[in-house]
């Protein structure tokens, strides 16, 4: 999935990567493309993961993991970082999700459970400001419950903010007409996808 997303990001793009699977996308940028990766904690120009033994814990990503900085990178403070995010300067953000609804609502910060420690980070800023919001997630939960739904039941991160969803079963665009399937994973047919999706799909 990370490789598919990386393939869809054009040369010259400014991209913010969320915590988890999205972090892997940096490893799959096709050869010959220059993509500048932004991390919300104050760096444009995230490089490959450091080799063991060279980690610098003052040089970390949003997930607080050690990273490296490419040549030409720059550091900045948090208000500037979120001016880049909110101000519409970034081309793509790639985020994980608990649920996406058929009009592009995103729920990715809280399950709403009383035992859940609420934590939001930069997700609500990213979905409002970045030009294209891509979600990368498993198509269903581990017990098979659909994550692409008519209406999110978990607390929202943003309303009508998602542009595209990448799952293990399909790539789906959020359009004004609804959720449009643009690609099926190898071995997955239309009916399988419909059965594993609560929301309506357009083929």
């Amino acid at each position, binding site marked *: 999935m990370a490789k598919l997303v990386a393939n869809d990001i054009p040369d010259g793009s400014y991209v913010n990567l969320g915590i988890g699977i999205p972090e892997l996308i940096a490893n799959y940028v096709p050869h010959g493309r220059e993509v500048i990766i932004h991390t919300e904690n104050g760096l444009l120009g995230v490089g490959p993961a450091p080799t063991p033994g060279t980690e610098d814990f003052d040089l970390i990503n949003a997930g607080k993991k050690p990273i490296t*900085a490419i040549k030409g990178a720059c550091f900045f403070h948090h*208000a500037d970082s979120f001016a880049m995010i909110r101000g519409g300067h970034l081309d793509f953000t790639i985020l994980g999700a608990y649920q996406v609804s058929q009009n592009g609502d995103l729920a990715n910060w809280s399950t709403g459970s009383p035992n859940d*420690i609420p934590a939001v980070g930069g997700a609500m800023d990213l979905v409002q400001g970045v030009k294209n919001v891509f979600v990368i997630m498993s198509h269903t939960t581990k017990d098979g419950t659909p994550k692409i739904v008519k209406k999110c039941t978990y*607390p929202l991160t943003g*309303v009508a903010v998602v542009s595209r969803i990448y799952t293990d079963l399909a790539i789906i665009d959020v359009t004004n007409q609804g959720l449009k399937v643009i690609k099926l994973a190898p071995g997955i047919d239309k009916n399988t996808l419909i059965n594993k999706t609560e929301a309506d799909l357009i083929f």
Partner: protein
Amino acid sequence: MINKVFKTPKEAIADIFDGATIMIGGFGEAGSPIELIHALIDQGAKNLTIISNNAGSGHVGLAALLEHKRVKKIICSYPKTAFSEVFPDLYCNGEIELELVPQGTLAERIRCGGAGIPAFYTPTSVGTPLAEGKEIREIDGKFYVLEYALKADFSLVKAYQGDRYGNLIYYKTGRNFGPIMCMAAKVTIAQVNKIVEVGELDPEIIVTPNIFVHRVVEVANPLHEHVLVSQNKKYPWTE
């Protein structure tokens, strides 16, 4: 003569009072002024309101300040981090108040606090539980939430180098909230790895102008939180 240099973290934080509002820099451990926080634990001020992006990890630094019940309220964006045990326990037992703020809204509230802007409209959190009860305004066909500036009695930040005027430069992603927190407090206290002579820092690359900084203290080899956490250390040190 202007000399904002203090000899020790203990002297630099000595007048922090019970009930104070304190901004603490850092994103995780990067930029977290751990020696200033430990001095604050030793000093004993309590009933504090803390403004910080996270809520600490392990049993050192900010997590230790919470563990010693010095904090009544924390304003932050992401209080759960790998190895954060103290905050979840306090929160689940109702022993600490949490104001959860989206990270960009937190940064802008702090920036505005330092810049004389009392409030601002932002698209962040519109239509979510974090906008409930807040004023919503439509501007040019889009909806925005009214958010108020944050100010503090003290800011504790970590920078890389500083001089006796209070000019600061930072180190890599340790910069994060430092520059804006310096602007938003009545008294800003910076720990730096090295104090240099006035004039040594290139005026073209100074990140925090000295007017925003009131006290500077050198901590030449600051502790690393991830090392302390991996060794299961607790502050105050027991051995």
